[in-house]
């Protein structure tokens, strides 16, 4: 079932608990759903709507806005080749062309074996390392044709430490219960104690 698994639902509830309003957790939860299934399934959208207390349409509305959230299956490895200005100046277009030849697909397509989805992207914040690309959002710098071929071979043979598409960060934030300060609820107009104390010692308002 592509709803969130019991284990992932527990993670989802912990994430929701870190926000004053549950809907704030939506993007992290969509990533979690994508981590589980490789993309965001319809069932997952229904489930997330229940978890945060909104409609499935609202979840889809948010989901469809963001490039990283996929509503259809993609390859195990999503290869994002940058062709924006800094990369273009140093051969980004040639790299993309090479990638299309090597993988036998156009940008936006997935190889028939389901291993690779190739995407043309615009700026991934590694401009001084152009031309660059990402595999499942992990960087490869100054990539030439040979390096690209090597990368594809390594990924196919499982020689690279790249988790399958959907898994973003492999370290999760965890706030221990006894260390948590708690959410700042917008409905409760409470002045933080250290601010109140400073005012008192000043003998008046700020």
């Amino acid at each position, binding site marked *: 079932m592509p709803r969130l698994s019991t284990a992932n639902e527990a993670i989802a509830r912990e994430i929701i608990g*870190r*926000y*004053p309003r549950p*809907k*704030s*957790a*939506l*993007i*992290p939860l*969509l*990533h979690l759903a994508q981590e589980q299934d490789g993309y965001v399934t319809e069932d997952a959208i229904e489930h997330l709507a229940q978890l*945060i207390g909104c409609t499935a349409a609202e979840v889809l*509305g*948010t989901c469809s*806005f*963001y*490039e*990283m*959230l996929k509503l259809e299956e993609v390859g195990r490895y999503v290869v994002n080749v940058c*062709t*924006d*200005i*800094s990369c*273009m*100046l140093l051969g980004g277009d040639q790299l993309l062309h090479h990638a299309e030849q090597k993988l036998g697909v156009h940008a936006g397509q997935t190889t028939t074996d389901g291993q690779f989805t190739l995407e043309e992207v*615009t*700026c*991934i*914040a*590694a*401009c*001084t390392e*152009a031309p660059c690309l990402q595999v499942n*959002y*992990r960087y490869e710098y100054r990539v030439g044709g040979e390096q690209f071929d090597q990368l594809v071979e390594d990924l196919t043979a499982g020689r690279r430490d790249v988790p399958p598409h959907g898994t*973003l*960060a*492999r*370290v999760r*934030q965890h*706030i*221990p219960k006894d*260390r*948590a*300060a*708690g*959410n*700042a*609820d*917008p409905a*409760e*107009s*409470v*002045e*933080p*104690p*250290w601010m109140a*104390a*400073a005012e008192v010692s*000043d003998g008046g308002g700020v």
Partner: protein
Amino acid sequence: MTVTNAPSIITSRFDFDDSHTLARYEATGGYQALRKALAMKPQQIVDEVKTASLLGRGGAGFPAGVKWGFCPPGVWPRYLVVNGDESEPGTYKDRLLLERDPHQLIEGALITCFAVGCAQAFLYVRGEMALAQERIAQALNDAYAAGYVGKNILGTDFSVDVVLHWGAGAYIVGEETALIESLEGNRGMPRLKPPFFPAAKGLHLQPTIVNNVETLSNIPWIVEKGGNAFADLGAESSKGTRMFAVSGHVKRPGVFEVEYGVTTFRDIIYAPVYSGGVRGDRELKAYIPGGASAPWFYAEHLDLPLEKATVDKAGSMLGSGAIVVMDETTDMVRACHRVVRFFAAESCGKCTPCREGTTWLERILKRIIDGYGRPSDLELLLDVSDNISPGIAWPPKQTTICPLGPSAVSPIASALQRFQAEFEAYIAKSPLARRSTIPLASAAPEAAAVAAGGAS
């Protein structure tokens, strides 16, 4: 050339392989500024940051200390949102700070929360930065365990949770009100200002301070060394140091922390310790001085210092500290198209002039490059630009809620002003160049002259 020996403020740990760990951070003076801050009054910290004249490093360059003061008194809770959604083409610095010195940012955020009275902080990291998210998550987990974050920090009555949040791919979310929408779980579309100035009505309509990663990374140093020490560095309107990413056709592309306002474009592009000159010692054709939104600069601007007021006055901006160098071999029509394509792709679609305008600018440029340009296209590019940003002036006027649409106009104005011949050369080769097309009234003076001549 003036290569100053200003200290590294925010990149001082970058040489250590383990710069991202708590152990290294503590061993190099980390969290001492937080201890010092907690012994001060919140207002004293705000005053130090005001003395430092720390300008926001995200793009707009607004003084951080002044921004902090905009929260309406007596309205609680206040939130801090850290903007780590770096994605302006050419920009590459916040990711380095997130990956290599996450504790410095966390400490800066904590001190800011203490100074402003923010009861909760959200660290919004760009979705595409997997390693940065891992480093921040680990750093937060370690900082919680060590008592630096959470309840009763270092045994005081200061308590704040710092929550790691991450995006999912949308440049527009770097705009502060769009970032807040995204943080509320919505599509990342900007809000109208006024009334939605974040400091007054931000996250959940509460007072919210939105600061850039690089801005906050400076805070521990300022608290430790004092605002005056920071203000001693740099120039009149631009204090301290600043990170600049130099990319494109240079010998040594890189990210450099330099003294703000003193170092010049010539220094950072040509000095051996920085980018070492244009590749192959070719001629410099143009460079983008401050990210894709900035009007282009040329050789005659090389001796301008990297200083906000000077660059603003010269007709561009330092923006997000991104310098993209183009040598004499660069096809300026393609360069222009590539920058405009970015804004067309990233328009959120909320305002019509931006949604439709950037899309059409991109299509027209594409057809020129593809060999199907029309003689009227140059006039048409300016006409569409004028509808997005009336007058095509600098700083740009807006018909839109946020500056994204007008940002697409800068590269067109720059390229057409300086390199119109390159556009015309493309169009001359087009099969449509000599075919009679339906001219825009204002676009085809020849046709208009013929019509007028025929009528008399």
